């Protein structure tokens, strides 16, 4: 491979047929370019959507849905249940594989807004209880101050963490909200932190118009000590939420004497299930991208093979002469294969380069325009994938040359050198 003459030969033949070589190489170039663009775009979409999940992908939420629809154990239908701290205790003690189980309450119905006043300013925001370390679970991240800690919960401190939209509406532009006070239904809370939604998707607006206060404070101050609005739980590391969810559901239904087939009373949301579905989708997208791209590369390689066949035909006389002068069949095969591999590799490398350049420019443009957190984020192709693409290229170059090379090696110098 370090033989300079072979490279010169290849360079000379390619130079002789610039247009033909260029058009052929374009097929391979386009294949790789498509592969990089498709995989990169797929990765960007995946990253954007997965970002929406945040770091927490395996929690399950339980809340009370309908009133009961079926009579059970002597109790009539149409019963409304509510969860209590006893339910949480029962889950904690009876269900294994649970890492965390907590109560979550809110003011009003879930997602409804409360009218909050601060001096001259006011707005409608959703007020929700939370616990220490739960910011990721709420799909938010702290950008100023701090989040709720254990002491806040234990001491039922009257502190609040506000969303960015709350900060915008209730505070002056250059005002630092930390340490300031808010009035929520006549109770004063001190702001200790500001949080920003993780994603910029549909939920972002809602997640920015939120005020988090310690759940213990919420329940104590707003008369919900005997009720738990939502139970959130997280399985132990390595345990799928799908294993835990039915156990907890059964337990809750038994405890509240709900008929086993009365669905819709104990409602739940399993985040991990959603996560798996989305991941499955992206596996499909990646597979499809490869399928399309390999197809294109193969079409390109077949094009190269075709051209090499023509090249061999055109160069029959030259090959015959070389054989007469002492070229072995192997050296002829090497010549043709090398030319094909060089053609596909160079074309493919340019495709790879321009594809990566495209992805990088899109990423840079998106960062400049501040679109990094959307549903489509930072398209990228990893090094391993790029290497696989290069190997695919080299192999397709060799395969493309196999038939023409065999033909070239079989050239009979006597026939090739006969005068026309």
């Amino acid at each position, binding site marked *: 491979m370090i033989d300079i003459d072979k490279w010169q030969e290849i360079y000379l033949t390619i130079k002789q047929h610039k247009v033909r070589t260029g058009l052929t190489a374009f097929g391979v170039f386009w294949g790789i370019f498509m592969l990089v663009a498709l995989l990169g775009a797929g990765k960007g979409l995946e990253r954007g959507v997965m970002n929406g999940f945040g770091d927490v992908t395996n929690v399950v939420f339980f809340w009370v849905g309908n009133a009961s629809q079926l009579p059970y154990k002597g109790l009539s239908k149409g019963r409304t249940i509510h969860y209590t701290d006893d339910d949480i205790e029962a889950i904690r003690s009876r269900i294994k594989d649970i890492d965390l189980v907590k109560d979550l309450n809110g003011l009003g119905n879930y997602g409804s807004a409360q009218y909050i006043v601060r001096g001259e300013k006011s707005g409608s925001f959703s007020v929700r209880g939370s616990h220490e370390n739960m910011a990721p679970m709420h799909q938010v991240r702290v950008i100023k101050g701090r989040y709720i800690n254990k002491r806040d919960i234990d001491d039922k401190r009257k502190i609040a963490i506000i969303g960015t939209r709350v900060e915008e509406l209730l505070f002056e532009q250059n005002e630092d909200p930390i340490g300031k006070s808010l009035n929520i239904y006549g109770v004063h809370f001190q702001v200790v932190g500001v949080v920003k939604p993780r994603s910029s998707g549909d939920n972002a607006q809602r997640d920015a118009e939120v005020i988090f206060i310690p759940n213990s404070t919420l329940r104590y101050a707003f008369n919900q000590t005997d009720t738990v609005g939502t139970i959130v739980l997280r399985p132990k590391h390595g345990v799928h939420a799908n294993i835990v969810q039915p156990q907890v559901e059964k337990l809750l239904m038994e405890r509240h004497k709900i008929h086993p087939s009365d669905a819709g009373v104990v409602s739940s949301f399993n985040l991990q299930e959603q996560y798996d579905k989305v991941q499955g989708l992206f596996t499909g997208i990646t597979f499809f991208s490869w399928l399309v791209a390999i197809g294109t590369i193969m079409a390109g390689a077949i094009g190269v093979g075709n051209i090499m066949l023509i090249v061999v035909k055109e160069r029959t006389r*030259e090959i015959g002469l070389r054989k007469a002068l002492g070229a072995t*069949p192997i050296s002829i095969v090497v010549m043709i294969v090398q030319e094909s591999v060089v053609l596909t590799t160079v074309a493919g490398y340019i495709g790879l380069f321009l594809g990566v350049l495209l992805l990088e420019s899109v990423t840079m443009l998106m960062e400049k325009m501040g679109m990094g957190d959307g549903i489509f984020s930072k398209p990228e192709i990893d090094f391993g994938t790029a290497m696989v693409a290069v190997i695919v290229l080299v192999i397709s170059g060799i395969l493309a040359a196999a038939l023409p090379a065999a033909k070239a090696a079989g050239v009979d*110098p006597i026939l090739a050198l006969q*005068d026309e």
Partner: protein
Amino acid sequence: MIELKAIHKSYSTGQQQVHVLKGVDMFVAEGELVSIMGSSGSGKSTLLNIIGILDHYDSGHYRLAGTPINGLTERKAAYLRNRMIGFIFQAFNLLPFKNAMENVALPLYYMKVGRKERNRRAMEYLEMLNLTDRWNHMPNELSGGQKQRVAIARALVTQPKVILADEPTGALDSVTSQEIVEVLKNIHDLGNTIIVVTHEHEIAEQTQRQIILHDGLISSNEVDADILPIRA
């Protein structure tokens, strides 16, 4: 140098079996300049191909410089061709995208001679054929005679045992033809063994010996005594 004994060769074209060489006996000594003559279809091309190890023969014996040439693999044949035989063709067969020096150096490439050494030796032979100033010309920038001289340099560059010239003047006018014959005679004087296939009597008459092939057999193999004093 060349010993052929009872060489038979036949081709099958479809149903028909064509017996081209019907027991050729031929001997060429080292340093000889001989011509092979014959009408078309006499089998002279086939004979030349066999001598040049481009073709197999069906039966008989062939020894080239003491080496029996029989049942060789393509690889081995290529090796022997490269080292023992220099070809000169009617159509020159220079590679159009290589300059004169590179064309001359090509057989050395297959001999695995290093690039610098190749070019040095190629220049040596170009000088011998008075083409030094043309070394970087492409074949299409050379006249017919110059092209054939480049081809002769290419045939000589590996210092082969025998030089086979197949109608070397066939594509040239009479003046240039004579010029090429003079070149061949000169390199013969340097001790090379040369076999010229031709159908032109003027050319054949200037060789030491004419071998006349007729219908697959050698009909005349006389040393032309008259030619010897001319050479001397």
